[in-house]
């Protein structure tokens, strides 16, 4: 069993599990932090961004000044943003049989894999994952395509040049493999390869393994996966949450008795408590709008935003801010808000029960109805007519490199009355803000990450008790900024096996059994013999047929009658020879009684020596040696076949035959 690790990002995993001759890709995450190295794509022409000075080398060489621009002490690539793909060279991705998706954040690299590697398998995911994943991809494509940029920088990626660049460009991982965003056609083609599954549904893969998605409690339709054969069970835990938010609660019980548990997608901010962060979010929001300032929340169009809107639904009224408008701008805002209301079966019990009343499960329906929350596909059009200040505005993209958020950063950044509140934990907020410096607006960092923290993980592992845990290397050592926090690691016995990008792990686990069916008529012919109370044995002579990873024992064909017919002969050639087998022996030889028997049969001068594995009986006179071990007995005598046969018969007296 092998694990090919194609991504080093702990929350955007992409691993391939080779299990019983099937190749299963676990998630297909796309690392978008690479976009932080690029200049933002403004929706409206920005004189500030378009007039940035080009960057030149220390020696004054300015050949890169078209590609690299200097902005408030940092160097950015002036080009269409590019993404860091999972490793494509480690294995031949066309051999991947299936891709299992655990949540909508972990499928963003799917078009790169399914459309450009010769992949011909199937992708499995739940319906909300596919629908919301589609929205995320659509938003991403839209954000990038609506600001066409002629230039595509590639000079700086050359290894020789890259090492001359300042950080973080210098340290960019495999910049040469970075790719531009996919197109909508590719997205549609990729999504067409997905087959929808429901929680606890068992899916057979080639008869070899069975995969089952389980609720992971993190997002709408998010799943963990069980991959099992008859005798082995691998659990894949990715992005799970034990907090009571909107999704169905996590199914922990089904993870029990795993041989291997692959653990990814823990919280990215292990020291922050989501409740405290929501409090911080509300307080800062109220402070800003009470002062007449606007609040900008860079976010994804689905996920935490649902919970935030629910919080604000209660908080705004109680804080006397009910007149402050909430805006949500995204090309997919409408679909996202509506989708969330129709996936009732994927929601937590509380929200499900609302559907039967019938009421919309999320209160943002009421916010929309009462005009407190308004959503727009972009800043163009209706939004500019309705726009009132102060307001709270949710928009993408959290990297601050593309999307409507770029416009509002430029617009509101100059006033200290306004505040930008970062709630998504995927990007370093300081790096995201770098091209907007100097910035007058207040910046608040309230990352809300509901995924498992280390305390919850250690409780989970204690409960489900997997034999081996495999996780990204980041989880086996404290975060670099808090090296003393030895509690911020996965603590389990035996210690977790860690992986990093481009590593191939041989999982510390050997398959020992295979299930084989016996045909009824063959089973009928067996004559079990009880060798110990409760244990019966029977010898089987049969033919093993293997097809589609299923093994069946069938009765052997009758010995072929000698015939002269050529045709007959050919048939019998196909049948394996069935020799008459010697009987099988079982039992153990008690040394003392054996020696007594030898003496009775006239052997004298017998010596017994104990060895590590059993005993050696020495017949000194006959110059013969009998080695008695747990699973073998050897009689060693010099060319005296008679003696050997005599001794053999004496040994056989102690053993059962069948």
């Amino acid at each position, binding site marked *: 069993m092998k694990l090919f690790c194609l991504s080093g990002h702990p929350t955007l995993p992409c691993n391939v599990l080779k299990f019983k001759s099937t190749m299963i890709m676990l998630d297909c995450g796309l690392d978008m932090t690479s976009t932080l190295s690029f200049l933002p794509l403004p929706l409206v022409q920005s004189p500030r961004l378009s007039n940035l000075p080009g960057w030149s080398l220390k020696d004054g060489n300015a050949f890169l000044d078209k590609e690299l621009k200097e902005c408030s002490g940092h160097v950015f690539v002036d080009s269409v943003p590019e993404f860091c793909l999972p490793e494509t060279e480690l294995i031949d991705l066309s051999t991947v049989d299936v891709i299992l998706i655990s949540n909508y954040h972990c499928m963003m690299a799917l078009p790169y894999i399914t459309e450009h590697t010769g992949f011909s398998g199937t992708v499995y995911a739940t319906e909300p994952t596919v629908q919301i994943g589609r929205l995320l991809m659509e938003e991403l494509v839209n954000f990038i395509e609506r600001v066409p940029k002629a230039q595509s920088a590639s000079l700086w990626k050359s290894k020789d040049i890259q090492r001359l660049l300042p950080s973080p460009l210098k340290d960019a991982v495999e910049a040469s493999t970075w790719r531009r965003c996919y197109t909508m056609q590719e997205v549609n083609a990729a999504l067409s390869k997905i087959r929808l599954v429901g929680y606890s549904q068992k899916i057979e893969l080639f008869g070899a393994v069975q995969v089952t998605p389980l609720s992971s409690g993190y997002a709408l339709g998010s799943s963990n996966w069980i991959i099992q054969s008859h005798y082995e069970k691998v659990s894949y835990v990715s992005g799970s949450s034990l907090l009571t938010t909107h999704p169905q609660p996590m199914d922990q019980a089904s993870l029990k008795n795993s041989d291997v548990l692959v653990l990814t997608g823990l919280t990215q901010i292990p020291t922050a408590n989501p409740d405290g*962060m929501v409090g911080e979010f509300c307080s800062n929001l*109220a402070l800003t709008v009470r002062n007449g300032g606007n609040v900008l929340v860079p976010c994804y169009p689905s996920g935490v935003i649902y919970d935030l809107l629910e919080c604000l639904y209660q908080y705004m009224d109680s804080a006397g801010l009910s007149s402050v408008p909430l805006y949500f701008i995204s090309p997919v805002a409408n679909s996202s808000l509506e989708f969330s209301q129709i996936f009732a079966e994927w929601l937590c019990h509380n929200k499900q029960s609302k559907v039967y009343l019938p009421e919309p499960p999320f209160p943002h329906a009421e916010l929309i109805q009462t005009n407190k929350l308004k959503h727009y596909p972009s800043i163009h059009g209706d939004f500019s007519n309705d726009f009132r200040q102060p307001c709270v505005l949710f928009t993408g993209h959290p990297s601050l490199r593309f999307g409507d958020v770029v416009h509002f950063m430029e617009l509101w950044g100059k006033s200290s009355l306004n505040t930008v509140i970062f709630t998504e934990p995927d990007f370093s907020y300081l790096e995201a803000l770098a091209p907007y410096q100097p910035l007058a607006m207040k910046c608040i960092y309230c990352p809300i990450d509901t995924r498992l923290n280390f305390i919850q993980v250690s409780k989970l592992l204690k409960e489900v008790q997997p034999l081996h845990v495999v996780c990204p290397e980041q989880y086996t050592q404290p975060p670099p900024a808090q090296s*003393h926090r030895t509690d911020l690691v996965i603590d389990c016995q035996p210690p977790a096996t860690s992986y990093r990008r481009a590593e191939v792990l041989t999982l510390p686990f050997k398959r020992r059994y295979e299930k084989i069916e016996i045909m009824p008529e063959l089973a009928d012919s067996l004559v079990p013999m009880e060798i110990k109370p409760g244990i019966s044995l029977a010898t089987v002579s049969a033919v093993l047929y293997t097809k589609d990873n299923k093994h069946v024992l069938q009765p052997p064909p009758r010995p072929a009658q000698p015939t002269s017919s050529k045709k007959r002969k050919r048939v019998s050639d196909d049948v394996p020879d069935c020799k008459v087998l010697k009987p099988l022996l079982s039992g153990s030889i008690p040394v003392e009684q054996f020696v007594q028997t030898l003496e009775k049969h006239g052997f004298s001068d017998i010596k017994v020596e104990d060895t590590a594995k059993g005993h050696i009986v020495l017949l000194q006179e006959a110059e013969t040696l009998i080695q008695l071990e747990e699973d073998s007995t050897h009689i060693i005598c010099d060319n005296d076949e008679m003696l050997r046969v005599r001794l053999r018969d004496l040994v056989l007296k102690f053993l059962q035959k069948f």
Partner: protein
Amino acid sequence: MDHECSQLLPAVCAVLADPRQLVADDTCLEKLLDWFKMVTETESSLLLLQENPCLVELLSHVLKLPDVSPGVLAFSLRLAGIFAAQENCFQYLQQGELLTGFFGVARPLGQAAWAIPTIRSGWIQGLHSLAQHPSALCFLADHGAVDIIFSLQGDTSLFVASAAGQLLVHVLALLMEGRAEGHPCPQGDDWPTCAQKIVHHIEESLCSTDPSKVTQALNVLTTTFGRCQSPWTKILWEQLSPLVASLLEKDPVSAPHSLVDLLLCVARSPVLGSLDLRLWETAARALSCLGPTQAGPLALGVLKLQHCPEVLRTQAFGVLLQPLACVLKATAQAPGPPGLLDGTSDDSVMVDTLLSSKSSCAGLLCRTLAYLEELQPLPQRPSPWPQAPLLRAAVTILQLCDGSAAPTSSMGGRLCGTLAGCVRVQRAALDFLGTLSEGMGSQEQVTQVFAILLETLGSPDSSPTVLKKAFQAALRWLLSSSRTPGCSGLGPHMALFFPELFPVLQKRLCSPCWEVRDSALEFLTHLSRNWGGQADFKHVLLTSEVPELARQLLQDPESYVRASAVTTMGELSSRGLYTVPANPEHPEDQQSLLLEFLHILSVDSEGFPRRAVMQVFIEWLRGSHIDVAQDTEWFMATVLETVSQDLDWEVRAQGLELAMVFLSQMLGPLGPHCPYTVALPKASPPDLLPKVLAALCRVRLFEFAFRALFDCDRPVAQKSCDLLLFLKDKTIPYSSLWESGSTPNLESVEAALQKWQAGEQGQPLGDLEPEAVLATLRSIDLQGLRDTLAEGSDHVEKSPQSLLRDMLAMVGVLQKNQADCY
């Protein structure tokens, strides 16, 4: 016993003796016993029994009856004990062998009855009451009661077991006290046989391998030494102390908690503790061999003792400080002064306890901090008090809790992981930090304290309870900083602290958690109360948005927050720290705080904000707040009218308090209540009185007060009574001087008063003339009313007659119900 009770008693006894009559309410029997106890304390029990033969009949009847209810049997046991406490009555009862029947070793009560814990408890309590005289001691000895008490010490019912221990102590004391009177204290061998038996039993229990037996023995000794200070206890301790000391040689020590209690009890005893060297040795040994959890209480107890060897105190303080020393060592702090908390501690047991689990670590640190907090203000606290290392430890613990500490050692890292986000420890450390403010510290340390307080107050992860404690600690440190000698205005720390504090306070006032908003408002109130007069503070406050945010919280959805906001705004306004912001666009929107408060008073559905408004109004009237002083009569009339309709009695009572302030401002303060005040004119000058009365009539104070006189809530009526008596006291001497000859017409007033008394508060009262008021004041017996109100509302129900009647009535009701069933 009065006649009525004597008449009711036979019927009650008959009810109790009748197994068919079930006394459903046990509390009746308890009350009955209390009453008999009270009666026998003043009267002769013998006489009581002779005059009321039904009582003895009841007791003998109960003994004979096979199916008496356990409740009544236990009651009878206790009753017999109460009567037999007097020796002559004991003899009287014993003539009929009644006491042998109840308390004898043959246990005529029967095994089935004995299995019921209530009966065993009744038996013990009866004996406890009975054992008061020499005859009782002989009785105990003759009937082998002591052996039963021994066995009951291990009873399955904790109440019975504890009572048995108490009884044993009582018997031992009685045996020894009776003997010792007038004689020199005998040595152990000369003690009464029964006392020797008890001591032998204790000795045996102390040597037992069963920890529960050891605990019983230690508890008996603790109670004995705690209760008796006679010389014989000294002999007892001398005899038993080697056995007690030997308990410490076992590993693990059995019954460590009881052992600590005993050692502390002996140490506190004036007869035993002060002289006994062996005791101090045992205590020292206990300190060194008990685990940190058990040694802590002993160390604290030792340090609280008035007289104790200095070596032991030092050892005890070392034990107490050890967990903190470990924390300091783990975080690799610079060593403190040599000795305590110097960072050289190397106790592996302590380290193990600290690191073994989150709960044990938190428990140990919380207890340690609580002990030190308790010790800090005591005069006998160790000296020199290690203020600086303690401050450092408190700050370090808080840093470990909020994750801001960055220790380099592996133990520090593990402590960090264990304590991160531990709210319990955070709260305890903040409490302790607050206590340490009494002792201050170096400039650098105080800066550190304010830094960690700011960090805690600003951290998104601080829970509401932690924030409350952090606010309290911050206030204590601010107060102690401002007490620094030579410090005028805001001290250097405060000048730095306030500008950083206000953004945090702003954020907290907007918290979605109401507890946080509430604590922030309380804190703000304290700040303005203490530093409202300081120009620097004023400047920081007024340049922040805090006052405006606080005002917005007057509309908070949570009533506690609204109440706190009212108090805060009242305080800010009194000190001139809040003025209504000018709104040139909408001048009509400007509303004074007074109007806003009046609005809350009349419409708020919850009591707390309304009470808070009244409190502010009382303060404003006392302090002549500008909004009130502008038109006090209008203010009073409006408030009293609103308050008179309030459903909350506290608000109505506060209305009367406000009226009282108003009255005393007009008529001068209450004279006789302040004997040391400078003599003021006893009453207002006669020429002022008509004006005052007219004003009081205009604000309809009398209608409010008279109405309150018949309020259904007693405190309101009492307050009103006091107010009217005060007024009567001030006005009556002069009333004849200016009253016209004609008698005012009181008919309408009296009619209204009667209606109000009958509960019809809706009845209006027309305009009152001052003359009518004076006449009404004269006509009502206010003093009599006050006396009636002063009696508890249950004074009738509490009487024994009422109790006896209730019991009979209850049975009567039961009978009726039974009849209904057929």
